[in-house]
């Protein structure tokens, strides 16, 4: 039986974990290592680190954060934000990441997806999508925390990326992110209907019913939770129970 995964998402503005609303208006939440350890001890299935500044200047400190996590957090670690080249991927994997999430660079040059999947396997290559609703049943993929257009249709883009070797999709609804108003279930359905790889739904959870709906109605294989965990609205155990 397939058990949906519950993933804690740590948005990083080095050296801190931060949290915003719709990927903006950022507030400091705490120390990445303290939070990672706390979620690990609570039984989290995976951790996702997203460097939301993603400047070259921050690279080293992101790698340090990963290295520290890999010291005593024994669950899969995904890292994203500013991954531009195969060399970036190499460095992050050697800093302790198991998977790498790519958004901007892939939208500019989709062949990066293929290059990463061929070298390390598709299980390593997570496509990160920042989806904004632009009409009924229609979403556009954005980059740079929902600020930059790609003019790519989300449903078409995920299919192209999966065919190039993306092994998983981290699907973030920019509209719902940080609002606690619930996930964009319709977006999730639209994506899970067209790809055969696992989909992690992110953005908007405010209740245990939202978590359940992501899985039962949206068909999500995993959910990424930030606000609800950072502010102790629910425990990891409660959310895992809700989606089981």
């Amino acid at each position: 039986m397939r058990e949906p995964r519950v993933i804690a998402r740590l948005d990083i503005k080095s050296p801190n974990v931060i949290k915003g609303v719709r990927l903006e208006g950022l507030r400091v939440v705490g120390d990445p290592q303290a939070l990672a350890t706390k979620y690990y001890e609570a039984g989290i299935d995976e951790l996702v680190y997203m460097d939301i500044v993603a400047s070259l200047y921050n690279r080293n400190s992101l790698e340090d954060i990963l290295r520290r996590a890999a010291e005593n957090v024994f669950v899969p670690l995904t890292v994203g934000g500013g991954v531009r080249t195969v060399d970036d991927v190499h460095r992050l994997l050697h800093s302790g990441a198991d998977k790498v999430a790519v958004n901007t660079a892939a939208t500019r040059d989709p062949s990066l997806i293929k290059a990463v999947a061929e070298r390390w396997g598709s299980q390593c290559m997570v496509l990160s999508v920042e989806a904004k609703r632009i009409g009924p049943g229609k979403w556009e993929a954005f980059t740079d925390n929902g600020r930059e257009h790609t003019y790519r249709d989300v449903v078409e883009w995920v299919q192209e990326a999966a065919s190039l070797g993306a092994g998983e999709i981290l699907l973030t609804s920019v509209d719902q992110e940080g609002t606690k108003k619930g996930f964009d279930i319709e977006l999730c359905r639209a994506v899970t209907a067209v790809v055969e790889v696992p989909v992690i739904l992110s953005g908007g959870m405010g209740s245990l019913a939202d978590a359940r709906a992501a899985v039962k109605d949206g068909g999500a294989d995993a959910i990424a939770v930030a606000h609800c965990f950072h502010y102790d609205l629910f425990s990891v155990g409660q959310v895992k129970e809700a989606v089981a």
Partner: protein
Amino acid sequence: MTIGVVDYGIGNLLSVCRAVAVCGGNVKVLSTPAEVPAVDRLVVPGVGAFGDCAAALRDQGFWEPVVAFAASERPFLGICVGMQMLFDVGLEFGQHQGLGILPGQVVEIDRLRPDGTVRKRPHIGWVGLQRPEGRTWEGTILEGTDEGTKFYFVHTFSAVPEVTSDRLADVDYDGFRVSAAVNRGNVTGTQFHPEKSGPAGLAVVSRFLKQ
């Protein structure tokens, strides 16, 4: 006692090494084949494609030393593709020769479930182990692990052991039987990642160190 982790240029060894270390093991990353015979226990990790891993193992000269180590009495652990390579042949992007330590092949997880719907691949997630009928976990790396304990899996291909008694643990993935762990004598393989499976995974690593 030294635990050697074979570094043949594939993936992230940090977590495997760290897991062994927190379980009290003295880890040594082996970057040359000549170092293999001297260690007391051997770990062969592996991620990505079967063919790439097998080619890298061979190109870097690890093939014979690894086979020879498995033929000794010393404990040997293959993880993920490291387990898959124990078998005769892998059918990922063509046909690739494995180490041939255990008879069997490595096949793609079926795309369709019994009800005709699509089974997601890669198979990613935490799944509870089942003990095949008639198989004991006593004296193996799963000694002390309860049936149903969940471990982390991420794979698209899966080993099919030819000899039933080599199956140490299975998991069910929507009606597809995944060989989750195999064992014969001193040789053990896990399709799951003990180094990514939280406390349950570390318990397995500890058990490997005590074998």
